[in-house]
């Protein structure tokens, strides 16, 4: 749920009780004020009546109006009442409803008589207005709130745009792509802070990454020189006259291992360089030509193992890739298909419709299929292999978003690698 929706829900939940409470408070307050004003009105009526009664010598009817309000009643002299207010009801003649009224009663006397004056005033209308006003205000309050939320929803996209841009940048951020200043200055303080912090963070990481990268590369290069020295020394030693066979064998074994070490170092360096995206030049590589050339190049190795090559290559199949990596990628797959092929086995290479399929005969993998593309996974029957060929294939494929799948057909004993793009 979005932050905005969450906020809106909480605001709505909180505003309903506030609105209801507000309605009743306002209603009560207006009621109190109305009563107060009515009472003042009644007092003023009473004063007028009192004045008239004091100077009047006659009967009370001089005061009376059609409504009999104020109502005069002659009471004995002994009864003295100070003005008192009370609430009562009467029947409204319009629709026979009971309506609330305010009543003032007091005694007034003149020379002749003592009167009980009763004055009434209906305040039902004021109460109705009060209720309508209170509810009206309550509803207005809620309406106003909803309108504010709506406006917030409408400007939300615009306001949070920088935030989503930053998120987008982060999502697309790749350490090896040299785009350090992707976080631009934002108009909104908070987003600006976020942007700047992320900028600093990525700068730091990228600096560390470059250092690490340089170290790996330099280390690999530095290792090659001592290997070159040892290799040259061993070669010189091998060239000495009259070396016994045993010594020659020792030297030979050392040389073989040294060569493996060098090859290993080169492969690791290659992996690092691919990971670091140091093969940035991309061109449209004609895979059809590449595959044909490589097959021709490996022909003699296949022949030596008496492997039959079946190829089906659609012309002009292209792929946007670094040409060197393309050669390594296809080369490793083909070499694999030859190396792990059976004697007198067969190799099929089909390139068509953006798909390269390479199959070879061979026994089931001695390790779980999931480990096939991992580094240093070797076939026990081929200890001389480094177990990096397919790891390099995977790394290159990942770099260019190529999909590589592996299948093994148990019945036919056939390994299949499919590369799609």
């Amino acid at each position, binding site marked *: 749920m979005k932050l905005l929706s969450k906020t809106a829900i909480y605001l709505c939940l909180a505003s309903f009780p506030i609105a209801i409470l507000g309605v009743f408070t306002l209603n009560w307050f207006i009621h109190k004020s109305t009563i107060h004003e009515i009472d003042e009105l009644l007092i003023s009526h009473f004063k007028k009546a009192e004045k008239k009664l004091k100077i009047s010598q006659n009967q009370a009817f001089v005061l009376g109006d059609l409504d009999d309000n104020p109502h005069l009643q002659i009471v004995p002299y002994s009864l003295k009442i100070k003005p008192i207010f009370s609430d009562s009801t009467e029947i409204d003649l319009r629709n026979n409803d009971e309506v609330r009224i305010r009543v003032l009663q007091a005694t007034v006397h003149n020379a002749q008589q003592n009167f009980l004056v009763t004055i009434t005033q209906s305040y039902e209308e004021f109460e109705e207005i009060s209720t309508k006003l209170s509810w009206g205000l309550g509803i207005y309050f809620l309406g106003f709130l909803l309108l504010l939320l709506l406006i917030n929803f409408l400007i939300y996209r615009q306001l949070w745009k920088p935030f989503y841009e930053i998120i987008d940048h982060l999502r697309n951020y790749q350490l090896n792509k040299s785009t350090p200043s992707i976080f631009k200055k934002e108009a909104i303080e908070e987003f600006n802070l976020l942007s700047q912090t992320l900028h600093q963070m990525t700068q730091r990481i990228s600096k560390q990454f470059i250092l690490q990268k340089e170290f790996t590369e330099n280390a690999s290069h530095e290792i090659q*020189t001592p290997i070159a*020295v040892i290799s040259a020394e061993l070669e*010189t030693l091998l060239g000495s006259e009259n070396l016994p066979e045993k010594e020659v064998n020792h030297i030979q074994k050392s040389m073989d291992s040294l060569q493996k070490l*060098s090859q290993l170092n080169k492969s690791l360096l290659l992996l690092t360089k691919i990971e670091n995206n140091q093969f940035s030049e991309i061109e449209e590589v004609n895979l059809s030509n590449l595959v044909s050339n490589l097959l021709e190049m*490996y022909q003699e190795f296949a022949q030596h193992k008496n492997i039959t090559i079946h190829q089906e290559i659609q012309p002009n199949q292209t792929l946007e890739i670094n040409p060197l990596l393309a050669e390594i990628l296809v080369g490793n797959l083909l*070499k694999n298909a030859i190396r792990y092929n059976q004697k007198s086995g067969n190799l099929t290479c089909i390139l068509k419709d953006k798909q390269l399929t390479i199959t070879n005969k061979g026994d089931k993998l001695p390790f779980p299929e999931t480990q096939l593309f991992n580094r240093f996974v070797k076939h026990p029957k081929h200890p*001389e292999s480094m177990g990096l060929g397919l790891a390099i294939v995977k790394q290159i494929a990942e770099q260019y978003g190529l999909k590589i799948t592996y299948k093994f057909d148990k019945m036919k004993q056939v390994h299949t690698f499919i590369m799609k793009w």
Partner: protein
Amino acid sequence: MKILLIEDEPSLLLSMQHYLEEEGYIVSTTNTFRDAVEKINDYDYDCLVVDITLPDGSGLDIIKELKQEKTNVGIVIVSAKNSLDDRLVGLDLGADDYLTKPFHLSELNARIKSVLRRRFFEGNPKITFQEISISPENQEVFVKNEIVELTRKEYELLIFFISNKNRILSKSAIAEHLWGDSMDLADSHDFIYTHIKNLRRKLIEKGCPDYVKTRYGAGYIFSEK
């Protein structure tokens, strides 16, 4: 033939020097950029072997300077870096060849011979060994003036053998020379042996003595002895 070796790793320098001296070259060595520039200005060399990364400068600058003077010196770059860029830059500047460390001394020797051949025997660069005579221009091999039909690999193998005659050539050196980056496919013993056997047979058929000798299974020697 005078060769100048420019390499900052002393033991590698020494190994290269010995190997090349045994080949009959007059070899000078240096391990700094400055000294190399001085030597080049003071003496004439036929071939230079240059390491790109020197402590006080880049080997590429030496090549640039040399090429401005338009000397006819052959240049072989030796570098720990296997990057395509360095290779292309080096060759663009006018270097004749580029060798990545580590390399076999026999490979370096073969490359130097090839460079010198191209530079100094223009027109009719013939390689001869006893009754074998090779014309690299049209890649033809003659034994006693009779042509020998060789496959491409057999031809390359023969040149490599003759360039390193009387020396033991390990199987890995031969594999690397013939197949380069795909040599890992050639690691089976009998694969190289098949090629050597065929070359041997074709030469013997034309009346050559068996020049190829096996040394304890470690390597081969091409020798008239």
